[in-house]
């Protein structure tokens, strides 16, 4: 791989991102990105979940507090959910997470929700690359090094 994952910047920062991928669309999309030999950074650690609505805000917060620099939640496009409407609930749960982080001034930019279908290998690669670049600009998650957490 030639992508940004292995590259540390001048401060030696290598972003680490946790991705929650829904089984039916986004995980298949990620798989397609792989079989299409698209450039997807290894900085993302994908976790397969059966539905994006299964991602409780606590899971996102746990990832952040254990030092992930970013958390990506992906699911089927609205209208295409394997379970009909799971992703609409996912969007609400995500909006709540976003609100809590915003209200507490805890860098809501470190979390992202994107819709990726099973046929969108290139989109998956693009989303991940773009997000990791954003995280790179943000720098390391302060929660990673905070001693009083």
């Amino acid at each position, binding site marked *: 791989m030639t992508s940004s994952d292995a590259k540390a910047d001048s401060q030696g920062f290598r972003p680490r991102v946790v991705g929650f991928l829904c089984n039916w669309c986004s995980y298949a999309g990620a798989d397609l990105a792989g079989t299409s030999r698209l450039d997807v950074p290894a900085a993302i650690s994908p976790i397969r979940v059966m539905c994006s609505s299964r991602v*409780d*805000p*606590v899971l996102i*917060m*746990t990832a952040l*507090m*254990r*030092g992930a620099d970013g958390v990506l939640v992906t699911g089927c496009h*609205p*209208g295409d959910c394997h379970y009909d*409407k799971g992703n*609409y*609930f996912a*969007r*609400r*749960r*995500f*909006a*709540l*997470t*976003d*609100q*809590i982080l*915003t*209200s*507490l*001034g*805890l860098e809501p930019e470190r979390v*992202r*929700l*994107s*819709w990726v279908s099973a046929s969108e290998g290139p989109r998956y690669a693009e*989303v991940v690359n773009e*997000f990791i670049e954003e995280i790179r600009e943000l720098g390391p998650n*302060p*929660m*990673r*090094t*905070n*001693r*009083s*957490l």
Partner: protein
Amino acid sequence: MKEGYKGLGVLMDAPDGPNAAIREMLRKGHERGACDAILVPMKVPSGDSYMHVLVDDVEMLDRAAPISPVLTVQGARAVTSLTRRGDEGVCIAAVMRPCEAEAVIELRKLFQVDLEHITIITMDSPGTVPLQDFARDPEEGERVFAEALATWDDSAMRPICQTCEKSNSAVGDLHLGLRGVQTGKVLLIPQGEKGLEAIAKLGLTPDHPIDEWKQASDKAMARKRGTRKANHEDLRKRASGLSGLLDLLGACINCHNCMRVCPICYCKQCKFDSPELRNTSSDYLDRADRSGSLRMPSDMLLFHMGRMSHMVLSCVSCGACEDACPTGVPVAQLFSLVAHDAQERFEYMPGRSSEEKRPLVTFEFEEFSEVED
């Protein structure tokens, strides 16, 4: 706020103060068969606290303090413990503050209470005395509270009460308007069918306009809204960002009292008490290695933020959490700040209506496009 029946209430005599008037009304209601029992705050025999008591013998009502100086067990918890096994046709009149009644409505949506035969009676709340202050000096607590009830000056009440813009909300089936009502009177405002039924059983007719009370209430609530906004802005400055937040929560001793007394936290098994968060020592050591050290027990911030994500949309800002905190963390104020933001974003008001769905169990097809990337 729900509107009273055609904007009319019953102006009742209260020569000996609102508490005596409510006691009299409860007694009359019991006599006339409007209820089989009454759930009402009462002074404990030792005289240093108040508890919700289920009263069967009306003689006991003499000791009832419907407008009690402290919030001990949240009324919604008392109603849950009464009705969680379902409705058995026992009619109970439950007297509580608006914030407690709002929590009851949220618990109904969570299937934790059965309100079929419960008539809720609320009243304008002057606030409550901080629980620990009251425990330290009950006499002084009584005095301070009596003054607040007489003057509606809430500056000695809990901070969360001073910023509560819903303390006059007519949430109950019957609401007692006190603020802006002429001295020696209370205004009984019925709401919905249950309220009207109760009023009829009491042999009363709603014939007094509630406008005056409503105007006084709205004015007072507007003032409190200002206090709330100022308080939230101050808190936002202090608690914003990781270090500010950790400073604010720094004294937390992980006792989880805030969660245990929270009326909305009804789960039998909380994730934060479960083995799921128990990790191996090498895991902790890994984390300590990354940052140089690790606060133990760990995950204090995760607990508070996780609890927020689970209950904040239904948070009624009753302040039970802050009263229960042994180390004085302003946890209710922090939760109230986030609750306010979140409820505004979801256009949801807990306790507004039991017909309304909780935000996380419903959705619109087109919404929150700002979080989609």
